[in-house]
């Protein structure tokens, strides 16, 4: 168990590390998939299997590919590396570390409810019912958001193509 946890942790740290230190966008995209897969692993560890599946499908499958498309469309790939410059590194690092320290400090100071983690076997069913009962509004709302985003993205992209 611990080994898996450490492995997953390493995956995430490695992925994030590459994203942080790499200048190559393609590398970063791949590293992102790695990290996302690691996070999916975390979800499994946290008994959130459905979430893990969604993570892999949508994130690793959808988002990363979208980003890759983005890279391809905005950089006519002709063999050269797609590099991104970096700036403000020192202050950004300071800020990031400060935030991390603060959050970590707050986390360590807090007492969490000691209740035992629940084991649920019928997660998918439960979530499905919740979507249509407890969270019906959210469910409807996200449908509409998807529509809006779809129309928006399509319309903007179409215009870009037309011009």
């Amino acid at each position, binding site marked *: 168990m611990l080994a898996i946890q450490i492995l997953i942790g390493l995956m995430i*740290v490695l992925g994030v590390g590459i994203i942080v230190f790499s200048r190559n966008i393609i590398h970063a995209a791949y590293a992102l998939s790695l990290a996302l897969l690691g996070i999916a692993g975390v979800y499994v560890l946290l008994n*959130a299997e459905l979430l893990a599946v969604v993570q892999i499908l949508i994130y690793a499958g959808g988002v990363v590919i979208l980003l890759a498309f983005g890279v391809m469309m905005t950089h006519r790939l002709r063999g050269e590396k797609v590099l991104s410059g*970096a700036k403000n590194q020192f202050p950004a690092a300071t800020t*990031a570390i400060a*935030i*991390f320290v603060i959050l970590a400090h707050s986390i360590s100071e807090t007492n969490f409810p000691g209740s035992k983690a629940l084991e649920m076997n019928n997660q998918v069913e439960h979530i499905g019912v919740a979507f249509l009962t407890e969270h019906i509004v959210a469910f409807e709302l996200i449908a509409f958001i998807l529509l809006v985003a*779809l129309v*928006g993205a399509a319309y903007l992209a179409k215009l870009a193509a037309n*011009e």
Partner: protein
Amino acid sequence: MNEELIRYYLYLAAFLFSAGIFVVLTKRNLIFILIGVELLLNSANVILATFSQFDPHLNGQIFAIFSVVLTVCEVSIALAILLNIYRNHKVSNLDELREVSNE
């Protein structure tokens, strides 16, 4: 799962968050910045998933699923705008965008 473990997951989230912030602040390429945003959102999802395991209603997990979906929407819109920018400005770096200015 005991308290200590919760802490570690939360530390992980904080780590992701900080890394995301660093990426957002430093990388010049817009897509790179979007990658950073993904990290930020994932950190939040990790928090939600962490707490979800104590919740019989699984609200955290549900929340995280919604959030994942929204992220896709956000990325798609961002990419559509990016496409327009690339067409118009021929640049893909954020700091080269300076048409909208004060003076």
